[in-house]
């Protein structure tokens, strides 16, 4: 990778809560969806931070909160020395040039009635960078070339491309503004297997060439392991484990990470026949009413009668560079605590605002 300096982005105790409204005439807030509930992490310049977790764990909301596409309820977001949350209006808009986003579904995130040229120029215009026509044209061609599309693509429309090519357009749109940070929310999960590798390689090449910093959000652990330097695992709005990619996969310390990793199928029958699965009982609890204490204790095969149910574990450094939010991480790693059976608890999908649905935002104080 490129030179490693201090953190480019730092999140401190970031919370994103969505209110649940009810009532006929007056909207009363009857509860909150605790989508992101106190996450602190830092991303070094030129590095890739991978955020993994299952649906509903708040990973996408965190990524959007970082760019203030949804307004965080509390916490600090320090981007290159300035608190992004203190920026207002025009200043925030201008700051966004340096942080761009790549979305999951390239077809629905590209306007079908805009040509590729218009899609790419839009961002440049918004930031007053499209004054010189010849220069703009050069910049567009250069960007398209960087993502592996021919210059002839400029006059075409999104439907004329295949899924992989559309994702390249999405990447080009983020890239054309020459950002420092790119937040990629599930950049390959909508693509066919053989195309995923192309896009992952492209993201790596671009990082090497331009020294980009990535926050990659994905549910696929194998993808994140491949691309990320540091990996954070989220469960129900909180970070449960964070370590360098190699450390995390060599020795996962949090019970949830262990279960998650043992659940990922490996395309190798020899490995598949041998490996032991830690099957989690039940479903992810609802983020409107998260379990007390450790969020994972309702499904944790290692849960203990003391502390787990009433004290929320903080993310603490257990081994150098390896942070875990579990009271008993050392005991579990040393084998002093044995896993036990867990009765599945019934979980109901919330009929109220889903965590992905921004609904109405809480005004920031």
């Amino acid at each position, binding site marked *: 990778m490129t030179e490693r300096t201090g953190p480019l982005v730092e999140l401190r105790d970031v919370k994103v809560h969505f209110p649940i409204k009810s009532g006929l005439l007056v909207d009363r807030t009857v509860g909150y969806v605790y989508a992101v509930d106190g996450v602190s992490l830092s991303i070094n310049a030129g590095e890739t931070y991978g955020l993994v977790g299952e649906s509903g764990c708040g990973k996408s909301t965190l990524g959007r909160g970082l760019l203030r596409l949804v307004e965080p309820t509390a916490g600090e977001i320090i981007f290159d020395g300035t608190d992004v949350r203190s920026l207002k209006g025009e200043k925030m808009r201008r700051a966004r040039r340096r942080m761009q986003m790549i979305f999951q579904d390239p077809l629905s995130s590209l306007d079908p009635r805009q040509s590729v040229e218009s899609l790419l120029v839009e961002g440049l215009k918004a930031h007053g960078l499209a004054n010189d026509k010849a220069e703009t044209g050069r910049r567009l061609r250069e960007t398209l070339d960087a993502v592996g599309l021919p210059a002839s693509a400029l006059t075409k429309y999104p439907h004329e491309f295949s899924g992989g090519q559309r994702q390249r357009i999405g990447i080009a749109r983020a890239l054309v503004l020459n950002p420092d940070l790119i937040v990629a929310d599930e950049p390959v999960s909508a693509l066919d297997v053989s195309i995923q590798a192309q896009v992952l390689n492209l993201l790596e090449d671009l990082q090497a060439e331009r020294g980009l910093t990535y926050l990659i959000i994905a549910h696929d652990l194998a*993808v994140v392991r491949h691309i990320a330097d540091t990996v954070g695992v989220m469960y129900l709005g909180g970070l449960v484990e964070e370590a360098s990619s190699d450390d995390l996969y060599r020795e996962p310390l949090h019970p949830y990470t262990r279960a998650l*990793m043992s659940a990922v199928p490996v395309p*190798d*029958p020899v490995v598949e026949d041998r490996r032991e699965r830690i099957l*989690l009982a039940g479903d992810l609890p609802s983020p409107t009413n998260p379990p007390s204490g450790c969020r994972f204790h309702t499904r944790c095969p290692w849960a203990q009668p003391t502390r787990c149910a009433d004290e929320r574990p903080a993310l603490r450094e257990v081994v150098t560079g390896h942070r875990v939010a579990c009271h008993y991480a050392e005991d579990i790693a040393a084998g002093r605590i044995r896993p036990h059976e867990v009765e599945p608890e019934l979980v109901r999908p919330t009929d109220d605002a889903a965590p992905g649905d921004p609904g109405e935002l809480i005004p920031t104080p």
Partner: protein
Amino acid sequence: MSLLDVRDLSVVFQRRGERPFTAVDKVSFTVEPGQTVGLVGESGCGKSVTSLAIMGLLPRRGNKVTGEVLFDGADLLKLRPDDMRDRRGRDIGMIFQDPLSSLNPVIPIGIQVAEVLERHRGMDHKAALKEAKELLDAVGIPDPMRRLKEYPHQISGGMRQRALIAIALACKPRLLIADEPTTALDVTIQAQILTLLKQLVDETGTALIMITHDLGVVAGLCDTVNVLYGGKVVERARRHELFGHARHPYTHGLLNSVPRLDSPRGERLHAIPGSVADNIPWAEGCAFAPRCPNVVDACLEGPPPLEPTATGGDLRCNNPVSEEVAVP
């Protein structure tokens, strides 16, 4: 005799004013009783259409299905719609990808499970509901008595998929077709469902056709794997042979292009160039030729035949990856 013998199954979609499109092109494979067979491929390879054709669930207009689907020696494609309806659900069960859209949203789950039992096993409503409770219990749904009265939107995605499995297995079919049963689910829930399927298949002796794009799912589950590309089987092998020594450049490329959890980091992925859209019609040569690293002149002269290999599989390739090259 095989339980299911699919011979030269072709499905051609034809709309007025448009060129006919061959989605499935002379696919043949067999399923033995109790065996698990995988159909693997990317979007557009014809794997789902194959399963719909076997089940007779393709729309009646706009397509032409040819070939034979022999179930216990009887051709399912020649059955009258009424007779086929008797078979579906009783002899062959099916699990679909998206449990929310394949369950009826306005009917309680219990009724939907009991419906199959009433229709095929002639049970009365009360007995069927009782049996439905047992079934929900067997697929690991907690508190099944109360779940009977609930609607699909009231339970989670994993539970819905379990309910769907309960419906498919209600009549103890001899063949179960699972079309991407875990694609819509989270990985920990996927592990639950796959373990459940494996256990049910072992217990009941049901044969299973597993349709998926995920090579990892196949590696742990299937006895024999068929790899499809552009509507044709390009490689068929027992799973250890397939994953150990993939011979077809497409299979080989697929295995090399997926990042693996247990492989060392920092290696570049070997992507297959181009996309599935870069096919050429099989009549003009091998559909994979435009993306193939091993392409030779013969590949563009006509479709290569599906030939048996030394290891007991079948292969459709003029210039396969050498046997010595093991997939890392």
